[in-house]
């Protein structure tokens, strides 16, 4: 944005910055002013000189390189042709082949299916045991003492002991002549 100073009729700081970056980007009026006004031209040149000096000093104060860039064969071949890389890749490939072969051989061994079936039976037995414990955690000997063995109460008995809430009539169970009227 232009900050052309109308009082002094000179370019503002922003215009000078703009002119240093690219003079052609200035509006035509300011460009013309810059060409005609020695004060503004000097201002712009001074700032540009400072920046140019920055580059020159950076160049002067950077140490000279001690080594020259060389393109030796092993450097330009690329990482995929490096012998270390090739050796590592071969080792990884060999390890993958060994692991794969071991798994393949194990899966094709006789008796593997039988072992699997045995494991499944064992797992099923274990699950039955767990279900039994969930229903009644007492060991069989205690069940015998409390007379719980072989007890298989039917639904009617359980209903008698613990009637479901929604089934409990609102009036007395003894009432047989229909619902009571309030």
């Amino acid at each position, binding site marked *: 944005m232009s900050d052309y100073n109308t009082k002094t009729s000179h370019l503002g*700081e*922003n215009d000078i*910055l*703009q002119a*240093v*970056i*690219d003079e052609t*980007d200035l509006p035509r009026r300011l460009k013309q002013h810059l060409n005609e006004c020695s004060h503004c031209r000097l201002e712009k*040149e001074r*700032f*540009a*000189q*400072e*920046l*140019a*000096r*920055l*580059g020159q*000093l*950076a*160049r002067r*104060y*950077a*140490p000279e*390189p*001690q*080594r*020259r*860039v*060389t*393109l030796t064969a092993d*450097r*330009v071949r*690329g990482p995929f042709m490096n012998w270390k890389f090739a050796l590592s890749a071969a080792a990884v490939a060999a390890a993958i082949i060994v692991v794969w072969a071991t798994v393949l051989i194990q899966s094709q061994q006789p008796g593997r299916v039988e072992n699997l079936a045995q494991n499944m039976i064992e797992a099923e037995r274990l699950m039955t045991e767990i279900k039994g414990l969930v229903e009644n955690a007492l060991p069989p000997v205690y069940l015998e003492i409390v007379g719980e063995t072989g007890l298989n109460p039917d639904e009617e008995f359980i209903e008698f002991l613990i009637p479901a809430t929604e089934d409990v009539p609102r009036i007395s169970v003894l009432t047989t002549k229909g619902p009571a009227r309030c």
Partner: protein
Amino acid sequence: MTPSTHNATGSQDTESQLTQLVEKARDGNRLAFNQLIDRYQGDIYRMIYYRIHRQMDAEDLTQDVFVRAYRSISRLREPQRFRSWLYTIAVNRVNDYLRKKRVHSIFKSSDEGPEIQPEADDRRENPEALEQVLKEDFWRQVGRIAQKLSKMEREVFMLRFMDDLNIAEISQILKKSESTIKTHLYRALAKFKKEKGLRQFLQEDLA
């Protein structure tokens, strides 16, 4: 004197010579590529040094930039853009280096500072020692302004005024439009203008 817009390729003859060299190098001519190395290794080395301030690492990175350039020059479509293409590789390598250094510094109790030049006791008498003092002061001032700029402003500012590249080249290197480059440059210059220390140093040097 304003920074030149083309410092390495002054005339059209030089431009066409350069294009020919790049074309030859692209066809696998190592001799041509060596000529390109002779031409640009100083610029690339300095560009890297300005950003990392470690001479040995700057030399290693310069070597790496040219090896990478040699490996992929066959993919360079426009030979006339060789210089900006080379700087793009260099900018990327510097960023990789600084990123690794940051990660490395997390796992270290104290980060390695910039390379310290051996101090001379007789600085006042020795003109070389005085030059050394000026050099240290200059880089300290540059470091101070660099800290005040955003990453993009810093990169654009350095490419323009320290590496002496023109706006079009910077736009190609950073893959941004020229107007974006100018905007960042404008912001950087506005901050530079307020930096009294470095400006005074430069003005005294000019005087």
